[in-house]
């Protein structure tokens, strides 16, 4: 599945991640709903690939082979 973050960018440039979504349609629906809220009018939204999330995956080096501590 595709993994996408929706980020909120505030007028001062601060970025806040809304969430992780699993299709562009799902992410675009969230952005449309947020954009429709008058109180959020000053914010911009971006949909970005959750690249760091993918990089963080440890794949085969996962828990069951973790060194004892």
């Amino acid at each position, binding site marked *: 599945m595709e993994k996408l973050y929706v980020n909120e960018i505030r007028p001062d440039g601060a970025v806040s991640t809304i969430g992780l979504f*699993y299709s562009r349609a799902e992410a675009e629906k969230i952005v449309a*709903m947020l954009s429709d809220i008058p109180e959020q009018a000053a914010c911009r939204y971006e949909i970005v690939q959750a690249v760091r999330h993918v990089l963080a995956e440890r794949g085969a080096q996962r*828990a069951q082979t973790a060194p004892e501590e």
Partner: protein
Amino acid sequence: MRGITPRREQGMADPVLAEMVHATGATESRHFAALKPVIQAYRASWVKLAPYRDGPVNSQRVTVDDPAPMTAQIKQKAKELGADMVGVCRLQPHMIDLGSEVVHEFVIACCVAEDYEKVTEGADAVEEEAMRTYAQCTEIATALAAYIRQMGYPAIAHHNGASEVQAIPIFYQVGFGELGRHGSLINEEFGASFRPGFVTTDLPLVEDQPREFGVQDFCMHCNVCQRNCPGDAIPQDHVMTHGIKRWLIDLEKCYPYSRLRDEYCHLCVDVCPYIVKSHPETYKAFMKERKQVGYKTPKTY
């Protein structure tokens, strides 16, 4: 007030779960299809109470000259009803579901702690305990909302049966604790082993304040939940939301263990070391079992 925080749908209404279930050729999540009668009864109990989350408000309003004693009275009532923790904060848009509107000024958070000793009895016992506490929270929130309406103030219960509010931001704001790597809020006494119920209301109350005691910094290097997750669903990296670190769980990896098999999965919470203070012997015994099957355990307790 309009909400701005997306809520992920539950069950087959969640498009991620639906796609994964359909890919197996099934029409229902294996876990939900295999629920035992006792679990089904708990789930039915909160559905049954949903119609009673709101109701008529007494036209004879109690005067509140000072919100402090009223807040103490409400907290006392919630504890009499069975809550282990009670907190109050002013509602903010990020505490409300995107697409929902809540007109009330305050939210009261109630928590019931799970019996951590159930981890020694296996996944079925842990699931039954979780559902028991959810059902109890539903009863508490429903009764507390009715109690407030009887005093002449509007009040609506929010629980597993029906809700428009978000647990984590409310828990943080009322001072129950901090968000942990596993995605649940961590309290210094109950760890992450507790369940919520809420009441929104216009009854004048005094707000509690957030409390930070190092959880987010601790989670940066602990990684015990991450390394005990059978699906490898808990990420190394975090994002920031409203200034709070969030580790967003990868549902595509979580669901094969938590939704697509019969057995309940609650391991990320069960292995969280913040439970060790209140249940030292049980936690150590549980982690010893985990270590024996190859999972990481904390360096120290």
